[in-house]
């Protein structure tokens, strides 16, 4: 529903992102604000709220994201959790480090 509400610039950004990364999580995480997470190679889970953009750099694809400001309550300790260390929550992730992307909340 929200996809229809996105304006040209947002639509273009989304299309560009889907071309660079034709995955389920790109449109899902670009069009909503929710508790998401990406798993890195070393079992680190990065808590993110939204993907703002997907960009092609000289050495690969990068995700511009908004980090969560706290980990989920009762986060399993077998993983290393990473979230925004300050109130400034913008960050970029190298897509080559991402193993999986999923949702952290069910409702």
């Amino acid at each position: 529903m929200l996809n229809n509400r996105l304006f040209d610039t947002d639509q273009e950004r989304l299309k560009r992102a889907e071309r660079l990364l034709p995955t389920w999580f790109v449109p899902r995480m670009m069009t909503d604000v929710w508790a998401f997470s990406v798993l890195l190679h070393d079992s680190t889970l990065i808590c993110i709220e939204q993907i703002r953009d997907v960009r092609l750099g000289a050495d690969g694809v990068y995700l511009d994201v908004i980090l969560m400001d706290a980990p989920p309550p009762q986060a399993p300790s077998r993983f290393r959790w990473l979230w925004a260390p300050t109130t400034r929550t913008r960050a970029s992730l190298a897509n080559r480090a991402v193993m999986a992307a999923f949702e952290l909340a069910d409702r």
Partner: protein
Amino acid sequence: MRKKPNRESIQTALRTHGQTRRAAFDAACALAALGQPIHLRALIERVKPHSDPVAIQHGLNDWLDANAHRGPCGPAPTGEASWVSPGEPTDPAIQADALLQDADTRLWVLRFQRRRLQNHRQQMGIRHPSESDCQPWLAPLQETLQESLQREIALIEGLEAVLTGLKDGLAQDLRRHQAMSRTVHDRTDPAPDRLGEPRQNCADRTNR
């Protein structure tokens, strides 16, 4: 000459042993419920002063046996004989702790639901110029939707406030309960700490 124990004195000794053993077991259960470490010293402090340490050790062994992980050998005993009740914990402190954790999770999800709606509302607020020019009927629809979203956000904020209040109240109750249990335990006279004495005496002698 040492007096030969009669039947009555043996029975009394056995009864006392059983009572101490049971008291030590109960103390171990209480410690487990409070999430505190369970060891002989802690149990000695919680049973009647000058109780038989062998009986306390037996009580501790009983507790360890009852709470040991049951693998392929079969499940832990259930019913009257079960020391660890299945299903819901009966201790109010554990229940309150579980409720607090649940409240935390719910509050966390509510926060994201509020942020999601705020994001939707923000997206709607940015009106594209060509959109309003070409489709004038869209404006009132957007306003209605904006109001609806605002109402939902206010509702979630209200829920968050109520849940936070309930959570704070529960946390206070839990703290009060824990303080009370500590007071009850403190009333039991701890056994004198004699373990350090010989070493201390040795040290004194060496100093002299």
